[in-house]
């Protein structure tokens, strides 16, 4: 038993290291070469910097790369955590943050604001609003007698997502050509340079703390609603809370970076595959792994076709799929682990 605990803690330490590497890698990569020593000295001295004499490199690191890195990390972590919660909520290992159609509403709102040529701040806030409206739809339609049935929730969500998908195609077809590139970029997900990282980080931090406290309950809830009830958990309340939390996380991630696929589905799975099963460790591990995966992917998206940028969603899938398949092939299904 204790070997497992040791192993799980070891994995968590490894993920911390990975996160650090991902962040440094992300700060390092870009058109202009800035060596590691410079990066560290900029980061360390920035606390008491004066605005009067800023070098170009300081500006690049502090105003461009650092916010972008933090946004990438936050988005990845939000998505991965949302995916984990959805999987527990729906008791389905195949669930991802977009499965309930929450991103669809965000996409419609985002596309409309792109079509109208609204500013970025509008784009982000409208897509968040769209996601919340979509969430209320799923919530209202799938509730029966004050309780959630995961199956009903899943079906409602999937059908609604299909509906949003049709609307998205409709908007794309109607849109003039010069808008299309931006729209596709948004739909595939990409992390821009320009906005604040702080709101997303606050949401991430608060929801991480909530999840950490809920982790023992999540460990029980995966065994089914009735079992959880019989062990003393208020499943109605917990379901509602998980649904709200997962939706807010997804809405936040989508409004920062569009619909980046794959992170939410793959990260919790990858961690389960390598042997993390206790949610008390799975929750922090998901945050770290999701964050670093997206940070890496975002750095690559800036490097590969530089100075052109790729939508990061393409990269996450291109990195994630082979890694996942290799682990699945070599370690087998989760049940033959150990």
């Amino acid at each position, binding site marked *: *038993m204790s070997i*497992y605990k040791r192993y799980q803690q070891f994995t968590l330490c490894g993920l911390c290291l990975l996160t650090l590497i991902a962040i440094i890698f992300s700060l390092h990569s870009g058109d202009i070469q800035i060596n590691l020593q410079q990066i560290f000295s900029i980061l360390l001295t920035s606390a008491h910097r004066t605005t009067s004499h800023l070098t170009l490199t300081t500006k690049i690191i502090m105003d461009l790369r650092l916010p972008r890195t933090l946004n990438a990390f936050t988005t990845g972590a939000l998505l991965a955590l949302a995916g984990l919660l959805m999987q527990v909520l729906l*008791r*389905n*290992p195949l669930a991802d943050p977009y499965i309930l159609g929450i991103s669809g509403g965000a996409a419609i709102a985002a596309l409309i604001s792109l079509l109208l040529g609204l500013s970025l701040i509008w784009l982000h806030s409208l897509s968040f609003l769209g996601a919340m409206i979509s969430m209320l739809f799923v919530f209202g339609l799938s509730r029966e007698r004050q309780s959630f049935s995961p199956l009903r929730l899943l079906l409602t969500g999937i059908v609604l997502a299909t509906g949003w998908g049709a609307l998205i195609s409709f908007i794309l077809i109607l849109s003039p050509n010069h808008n299309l590139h931006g729209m596709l970029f948004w739909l595939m997900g990409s992390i821009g340079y320009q906005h604040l990282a702080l709101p997303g980080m606050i949401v991430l931090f608060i929801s991480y703390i909530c999840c950490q*406290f809920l982790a*023992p309950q999540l*460990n*029980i809830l*995966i*065994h*089914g609603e*009735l*079992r959880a*009830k*019989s*062990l*003393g*958990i*208020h499943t109605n309340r917990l379901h509602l809370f998980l649904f709200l939390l997962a939706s807010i996380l997804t809405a936040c991630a989508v409004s920062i970076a569009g619909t980046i696929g794959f992170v939410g589905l793959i990260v919790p799975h990858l961690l*389960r595959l390598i042997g993390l*099963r*206790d949610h008390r460790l799975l929750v922090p591990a998901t945050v770290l792994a999701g964050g670093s995966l997206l940070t890496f992917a975002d750095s690559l998206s800036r490097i590969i076709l530089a100075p052109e940028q790729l939508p990061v969603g393409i990269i996450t899938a291109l990195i994630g799929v082979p890694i996942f398949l290799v682990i699945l092939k070599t370690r087998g*299904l*989760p*049940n*033959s*682990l*150990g």
Partner: protein
Amino acid sequence: MENHAMKNLLTCRALTLAQKNKLLCDDLHWQINAGETWAILGKNGAGKTTLLHSLANLHRPTKGTIHLNDSDITQLSRRVIAQNIGILLQQQHDAFPIKVHEMVMTGAYPQLTLFNRQQQKQFHDQALIALKKMDLLPLLNRCVTTLSGGERRRLAIATLLLQQPQVYLLDEPTNSLDIKHQVATLQHFRYLAEQQNAATIMVLHDVNLAYQFCDNCLLLMDDGRYLIGKTTDIINQENLLSVYQQAFMMIQQQNNTYWQAQCPN
């Protein structure tokens, strides 16, 4: 111990359970005391599981009340109920792979408080005892999804043993167990009732097991009527026929009574 012997644990008053125009149980008055062993018998769909779920507050009765230690069960928090009432569900659900030793620890959940390591250690030791009782020690590090049906059942029972409630509600505890484990399991539950002042209520399909391991019996008929009393008093050919619409033969041998279903021809 002695003065607790007749302690009243669960009381049903005027309990009525109905489902979509079908009356499962009509106006049931039932008192379950510490130290008692109960069997619930009835045909498929007679409402045995629904009744058991109602006793654990997993199902809201149509009418009537259930009291646990003199407080209305609907007024108690789920945690308090789980500390007093443990239920073995008919089916378990394992979509996520976890290990046997992790699964059994879920039984400690109602007793655990956050951040108490001492307690964790103590439950670990008790978990090993529960697993040993169910012959699961060799499977400690196996993943639950690789277990056979009977092994999973034993794991669910071990988990329930770790929960250490006062009232054990068992929905077909012998399902998919081999004969040896059926006997050992029921014997252990009998021991818990008689020596540890617990109460056990089990849904069974085997009249002989009920006769052998349960002192009291509740027979649920199809139309919501019921018979309640000492097993030896109410299990007889006439009552079995009216519960199951199936004739039984009584076989007596060396002071033991056995029941054998008769084939129609």
